[in-house]
Each structure stands twice: as structure tokens, then as C-alpha cells.
């Protein structure tokens, strides 16, 4: 199945190419087919969201793209490279539902962590780190410890860390899943702004139909047992998308379409 970004990005280059990938997990004698020959192409500069029931393998798909799991069969390429060599250049950014911050490091040093792991001098990127603190709305909190921040602020630190290396591919695994609805919407707006400000290809796993419809150019609907792609639905709204879109009838039409697609594959 090919998910292509129509028009806006010009020449189609698949930044993320997952071809005929299967993955089975075995735990305590029980095997679970997380993915059964899944194919997904994410075009350069596009924002793709994945929704589906729990256990449909959407997080596994993301972890395969990050090289955190190896496929049993098939091929995963990020910009024509295996994820392992691609990520070693610092071109990959990742954020999870849990902020996964180092509790003993300040906000600034948490955001600087990728440079240290990559073995690059942090001092050379001081300006970039300050820029990001500003961008995620945490000005004045650079020297705070994660324990002193609210859940939403911590999540923004995690987003800033994911962006600090100017990644060309951004992987997001339910990054706002633990936030309440109001905070989630403002984070959605912020993410759109950040994503539009820097040329990044984004793949986001989410449970929220709203979030998928608001942020993505394309929504991939997955079904479980075994995990596979059942639908790809294009979201045509122009950018930047404003909060008013959440109330628009055409937005609800897309959401209904997504809900119907989920229902068809037995997710709800």
C-alpha cells in the first residue's frame, strides 16, 4: 500500500519506506503476530498519523522505523538507509507518551542529551537549545528540574529534545496520550507550528481521532490480530490549521470517516 502526499511537496521521495514487514513476538510460549506483511511509504515532508485498536502493531511499526526492533522479514529504510546507520547521524527524533526525562538533569541538559550521546560538543549548540526552549514555550525554565514541572511542560521538554538535532524524520508514539483534552489541543497547535517551522517528516501514533485528523496529511488505519493496514485516508485541510477547525463540519466529516474505518476493522 502506498501512502503518497499529493501536490504540495513536489517530487515524491519516500523518507520512510517499510516494505512487506512482518514481526512476531513470543512471550511465555505465546506468539503474537504484531505485524503481518505491512507496507507503508511516508513521503518527504509529510505528516502521517497511525490510528488503530490497541495491539494492532502501530507502536511496533514506529519502533521498527527507529531501529529499536528488527523485522522478522521485509525491509525498513529511512532515506534509503537502514535505521541503525541513519540514526547514528542524529537525523532521527523520537518522543513517547511518557516524557522519559532524566530526573537529575535540568531542562537544558535534558534537551542537550542527544548531542552528548552522539559525541558532539554541547557548547556549539547552546543557541539551538535556547531556541527550542523558547519554541516549546518554556522560557525561564531552562534550569528547572523535571520534578518541578507539570506533566504538560515535561512533555514539551521531550518534544524539544526530539527536535534538537534538527532531525529529518520525527517519530512520535502517542506523545500527548497522557495529557487532558485541553492541554492536548494546545500541544497539537504547538506541534503543528514547530513542524511547519522546520522541514521534517513526521510519523505519529495516536489513539485520538481528533488529533489524527487535525495534524496529519494522511491517516493510516490499522487493525489487530494480525496487525496490518486496513485504510489510508487523506486529510485535505490547508495549513496552518486553526483551532476553529475542531468545530468545522468538514472536520467532523473526516472524523466520522475515520471512526467508520476503525469500526469496519473491528476496533471500536
Amino acid at each position, binding site marked *: 500500500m502506498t501512502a503518497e502526499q499529493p501536490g504540495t511537496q513536489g517530487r515524491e521521495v519516500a523518507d520512510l519506506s517499510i516494505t512487506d514487514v512482518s514481526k512476531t513476538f513470543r512471550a*511465555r510460549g505465546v506468539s503474537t503476530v504484531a505485524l503481518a506483511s505491512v507496507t507503508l511509504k511516508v513521503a518527504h515532508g509529510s505528516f502521517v498519523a497511525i490510528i488503530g485498536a490497541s495491539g494492532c502493531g502501530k507502536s511496533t511499526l514506529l*519502533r521498527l522505523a*527507529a*531501529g*529499536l526492533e528488527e523485522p522478522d522479514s521485509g525491509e525498513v529504510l529511512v532515506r534509503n538507509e537502514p535505521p*541503525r546507520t541513519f*540514526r*547514528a*547521524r*542524529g537525523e*532521527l*527524533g*523520537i518522543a*513517547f507518551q*511518557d516524557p*522519559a526525562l*532524566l530526573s*537529575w538533569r535540568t531542562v537544558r541538559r535534558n534537551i542537550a*542529551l*542527544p548531542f*552528548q*550521546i*552522539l559525541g558532539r560538543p554541547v557548547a556549539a549548540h547552546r543557541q539551538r537549545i535556547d531556541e527550542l526552549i523558547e519554541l516549546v514555550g518554556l522560557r525561564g525554565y531552562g534550569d528547572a528540574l523535571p520534578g518541578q514541572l507539570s506533566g504538560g511542560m515535561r512533555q514539551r521538554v521531550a518534544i524539544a*529534545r526530539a527536535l534538537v*538535532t534538527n532531525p529529518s524524520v520525527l517519530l512520535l508514539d502517542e506523545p500527548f496520550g497522557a495529557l487532558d483534552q485541553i492541554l492536548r489541543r494546545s500541544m497539537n497547535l504547538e506541534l503543528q507550528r514547530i513542524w511547519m517551522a522546520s522541514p521534517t517528516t513526521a510519523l505519529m501514533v495516536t489513539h485520538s481521532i481528533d488529533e489524527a485528523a487535525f495534524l496529519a496529511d494522511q491517516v493510516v488505519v490499522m487493525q489487530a490480530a494480525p496487525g496490518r493496514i486496513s485504510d489510508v485516508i487523506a486529510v485535505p485541510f490547508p495549513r496552518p490549521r486553526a483551532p476553529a477547525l475542531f468545530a468545522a463540519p468538514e472536520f467532523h466529516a473526516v472524523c466520522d470517516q475515520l471512526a467508520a474505518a476503525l469500526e469496519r476493522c473491528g476496533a471500536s
Partner: protein
Amino acid sequence: MKREQWITAAGVLATLMLWEVTGRIFPGVRDLIATPSLIVAQYRSDAALYLPHILSTVRSATFGFVIGNGIAIIAAILFCRFPALEYAFHGVNIALFAMPAIVVGPVLAIILSGNLPQIVLSALVVYFPTMSAALVGLRDIDPRLPDIVRTYGGDSNAILRFVRLRSAMPAILAGLRAAAPLSVLGAILGEFGSGVRWGLGSFLLGSLGEADPARLLGIGFAATAVALVGYGIFAWVGRRVTGSTAAVTIAADRSPDEISFASQSSWLRHVALLVAAVLMPFLLWWLILRISHISAIIAPGPLETLRYLLTGPESSDARAALWSALGETLPVAGLGLVFGILAAFLFAALTVIRPAAAAVIMPAAMLLQSMPLIALIPLVLLLFGRDTTASVVISVLVVFFPAFVLLAQGFALVPRAARELVQLYGGGRSKELRLVSVPYSAPYVFAAAKLVAPRALLGVMVAEWLLSGRGLGNLLNSSRGLLDYDRVWAGAVISILIAVLAYEAISLIERMIQKTQ
């Protein structure tokens, strides 16, 4: 200070005053357990003696503490990095955890001289709590953090460097805090075995004959004070570094089959590592003697000891002596274990019915579980004499406090919703205890038993060595005096083996119960 701490302090003060007053009114009490003022007076006249004794013990304990904990932290890092290594060293780790330390003293005194036996014993005693705490700290990290590090091309070493080491700091400090009083106990137990002149253990040993209550209790308090100063230093450092005082009781080791690595590896590898785990302690024993070039006459290896027990000319005598000693020691240790845990369970249940009582008892119990068991010897000698009763009392006491702390924590972990459900239907505290808290906390009994069973054995053997002159403790002490090296080694090995088997048996029961639930 918090309110509970004030209550505890007031309780200690009230006890001291009551003791002083009854001692002054009833001469019988004064002759039996002295009075606080008599103990203070005795301190004054013994001041010149205390200084070198305390200095000697503190020096050995400090060296042992540094060496033992250094090895423990390095071992934890290696075990974390290479899980197969932990599996292979399981036997060594459990032997070091379960060994009754007093039996190792005479062995060390045979192969080492000067203050080295005390230092080495102290290091051996502190190894396990720090190693296991550090290992848990290194392993139990936010599972997303390794993903973050790998996303930027970091490998296992990078995860260790950026995440695990700093994450483990609070756990390591908690381990060091538990290890500090143990290092003092190790040094003192080493003094018994090596017969050195200076040290609190030697002081106690020399004073037992006179049975002067003021001096004996004074030594007990001094040993407790030294141990608690060590505990206090690391409690303070821990609070400064981590801003919390969490993790009080060091959990006993996880059995290797809980480690995820084992389930992934092949059956053959599993068996190979199991064999390695069993053989490793004996291999190390043989290797150390081999490298140090100590004569086989004073330091027999595993095969020589086996020959001594099974086929040698003295084997039937040796077996008979060991059998009768075991027959005296094991029932007492078993009795102490059962009664100690039973009492601890009842008291822990009491804290559920009367939560206010828990606030008062808990701090005292935490303090007392860190008290070196050697400090109990004077009091038990004065109150219960030198009989088997004294041995039972010692083993009950050394079991009770740590078991109580662990079980009370178990009761405290019962989900509030489950307890409130009983109240919602009009059930009282006792019904809540019967229907929810007791069934919920029952598994903690086995966790507690695993933790304290080795202490029960050690308590009994110390009492036998110092007071009753029976059983395994005495066998070791007298064989040491008679320079019967073969018997010292055989006795030590058998004691350690029994402690390890008891530990593994309790683990097995625990696992079987976990499986049925």
C-alpha cells in the same frame, strides 16, 4: 524532627528513666541489668580502654566497608551489563548473603594475619546488600530511556553512562546505608575468630567472664552507637543527594529465573549456567588457595575437605561431631525463625488495626534492625543466662525486627480501594484484616523468611560461641582453639551450605505459591 521521631525520642527517654528509677528502688534489678547512671560511671572509668578498642574496630570496619562496597558496585555493573555473569555467580552471591559470618572468621584467621581477617570478613558481609541494591537500581530504569539513547546511536555502554549509573545512585546509597552497620558487625565477628587484642569484639569476649552488667551493657551500647553512626552518615548523604529516605529494607536477591535473559536463552545454556552457578563457589575456594600458595595442611581445598568428611581416617569422628552439633543448632534456629516471623506478622497486623501504633513502632524497629546483633548478647546473657533459652531469645530477636519492618511494609501496600470496600459494606478493621490485608500480605511472609533465615542461624551460632558452648558455633570455636584446621573448614563449609539450602528452599516454596496465585 517529625512528630513520630519526637514520640520515639520521648519513648527512649522514658525507658531510660524507668530503668534508672526501678534500678535504684530494687537492688535485684540493679544487680541484674545495672542502671543507666552506673553504665555511664563505668564508661568514665573504662574511657582509656574504649578508645583503642573502638578505633581498632572502626578501622577494620572502614577498610572492609570501602573494599567490600567497591567490589559490590563493580560486580553490580558487570552483572547488569552481562546478565549471564550474574547467573554464573548466583551461587557465590547467595553464599555471601546467607553465610553465618561468624564461621568465616576462624577460616580467615587461619589464612590471614593481623587485622586482615576482620577487614576481609567486614568486606564479605557488606558485599551482598550493596551489590543487590545497586543491581536493582541499575536495572530498574524507565524502559523508555534506553530507547532514547539508542535513537541517537548509543549502545549499552552509553545507556550505562547516561542513564543507569546516575539512576542507581539512590539505590546504591540505600545499600551503603544498610552496609555501614554490617561492616561493624563483620569486624567484630572477625575479632572473635582471630583472637586479636583490640576491638569491641575482643573487649566483649574478655568481659563476658566477669559478668559485670554495667560494663557488658556499656560495650553493647558502644557497638550499637558505632554502627548507628555509620548508618546515620549514609542516611544523611542519601538525603542530601536524593532528597528522600526511601527504600529501607534491602530486598533479598531475585532468583535468576526471574531475569528475562534466562527465558530467552536455550535450554543447554540454561543448564550450563546452573552448573556454573553451583560450582563457582568451590572453584573460587580452590583458586584462591592455589594462587596464595597456602599449605594444604592449614587450608584444605574442596576435595581435601570432602575427603576429610567422607573417606579420611577421622571421617566418622568428624561426621559424628558435626551431626550432633547440627542437631543442637538447627532446631534452635528453626524455632527462632518461626517464632520471630510469627511475632513480626502479629505486630505488623496490629499496625493495620491501630495505625497510630505503627507510627511509633516503625522508627524504633528500623533503628533496631540496624543494630549489630552482637549488642544484644550482653542483655540476653544478663536476663536469660547462658542456656539454650538465651540462644532462642537471640534468634527470635534478630529475626523479629527486620521481619516486622518488611511485613509492615507489605501490609501498607494493600490497595486502599480494597480495604475501603470492606468498610463500605460496614466491615470493621478486624474484618478488613481477615478478608483483605492478611491474604494480600501473606506472600511477604516468604520474602521476610528468605531475608531473615540466615540471620536466625547466625544469631544462634553467635550465642553458642559466646554463651552456651554448644552446637555448631561452639564446634567452630573449640576446633579453632584445638588448631583442628580440617574441622574448622568442614564446619564452616557445612554451615554455609545449610544456610544456602535453607534460602533456596524458601525461595522454591515462594515461587510455587506465586505460581498458584
